[in-house]
């Protein structure tokens, strides 16, 4: 059974068709790079998969649970970091993660927080309020709340956006460490990330899937990935 299933997802905002009949599945062990220009429908698709947006048509299934009808069960198996990694700025990192753990009803929330702080290398800022953190740390906090319950499905909307090369390396390292046991979707417009991180690539443009293939096949399309990207999304 695939851990993520998108079946014919469509969404319009008024007259604007944001996503049209998008379908794909993601199995355990796969890291799917979700590529596309700004406004292509990446975030909208992710929001429908996570149950944040109701799809106009189609079904999103997480770990076998329909996100519309079995929302709570689906969300228990899901870790999601929205674009820009929003968090309650007035809370400290530790308080925020503890809240996430409690809200998820974890059996040993204190231990989950401890392990997650360590995994995401957040110990040194654990007592700081999130508002005072640098962008790199903020993104990691967003990532930390998404993995605190060790979910089977991980959906990350531009987790490396605005990070410096060292911070990007760090996020990719953590992702690789846990990728084998999960189904992961990472949206990005940094093409270099595909080679380093992903096992598969889905390119989306104007709300439609333009290409869905393995990393190697995608990389074999040409040496200039920017040109490949332009051609696919034209």
């Amino acid at each position, binding site marked *: 059974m695939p851990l993520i299933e998108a079946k014919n997802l469509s969404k319009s905002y008024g007259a604007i068709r944001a996503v049209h009949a998008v379908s794909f599945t993601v199995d355990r062990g796969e890291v799917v790079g979700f590529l596309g220009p700004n406004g292509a429908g990446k975030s909208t698709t992710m*929001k429908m998969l*996570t*149950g*944040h947006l109701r799809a106009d048509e189609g079904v999103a299934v997480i770990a076998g649970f329909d996100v519309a009808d079995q*929302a*709570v*069960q689906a*969300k*228990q198996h*899901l870790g*999601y970091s*929205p674009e*820009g990694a*929003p*968090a*309650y*700025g*007035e*809370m400290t990192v530790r308080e925020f993660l503890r*809240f*996430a753990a*409690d*809200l*998820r*009803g*974890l*059996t*040993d929330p204190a*231990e*989950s927080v401890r*392990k*997650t702080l360590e*995994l995401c290398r957040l110990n040194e800022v654990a007592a700081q309020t999130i508002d005072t953190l640098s962008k790199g740390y903020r993104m990691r906090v967003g990532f930390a*709340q998404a*993995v*605190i*319950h*060790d*979910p089977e499905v991980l959906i990350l909307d531009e987790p490396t956006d605005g990070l410096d090369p060292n911070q990007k390396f760090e996020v990719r390292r953590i992702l690789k460490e*846990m990728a084998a046991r999960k189904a992961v979707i990472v949206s990005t417009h940094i093409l270099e990330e595909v080679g380093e991180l992903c096992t598969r690539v889905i390119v989306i443009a104007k709300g439609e899937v333009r290409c869905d293939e393995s990393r190697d096949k995608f990389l074999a399309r040409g040496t200039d990935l920017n040109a490949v990207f332009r051609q696919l999304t034209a």
Partner: protein
Amino acid sequence: MSSSEKSPSPGLKPFTAMVRREFAGYFRTPLAYVFLAVFNAFAVSLAFFVGGLYESGIASLDRFFLYHPWLWAFLAPAAGARLWAEERRQGTIELLLTWPITVWQAALGKFLAAWLFLACALLMTVPVALTVGWLGDPDWGVIIAGYTGSLLCAGACLGIAAIASALTRSQVIAFVTGFLACFILVLVGYGVFDELLAGLIGSAGVDEIRRLGLWRNLEPFTLGLVDVRPIAYFLSVAFAGLGLSTIIVERR
């Protein structure tokens, strides 16, 4: 890696976590203390200087509660403005709605925390009651009924504030619209719109409309009359507001 074990049934844990966070959230900013100070200052000074609580020479708090609909109309929207508007502004609503808690649980948790905060403000005015008790020999049953009524009135105003907050990402807009809606409910009770309404719906309906005023419903409590109708009125406004705001958030 973190524990992947999830308790089979998390029960009330997520809900209580929600209430705790929201309640503590009020005290994370200086605004909460400003709020409590303003509420107290106005509650006490209105009762003594405008209502003439001391000069009246009567050991009763009805002149103190007389101004509570005004206070709540102003301060419940101030406390309730952040309920959803702040989640939208920070973008955290997207987290909250993708965590395994239903919108109803989240909304109820937020609402109860806010109501609890207003209850704290009200509790801080207990010295007024003690002063009256020291000066004279009040009927404590009546005072307790008054406090109960005031708390219910606060809940009704908070219900309206919750709707205002669910509609916008700006706390200022949420506060102003919430305040205006509550303000109308205060004025209705004083018959300010009587002529206007009589022209629109005929004089027979005017009295029915006036029953919807906040003071009309609070007044019996301050006289020690705990009646079903005003209780039902306050609770219906509170829960209608809670329900409607939840539907707005769900349907966004």
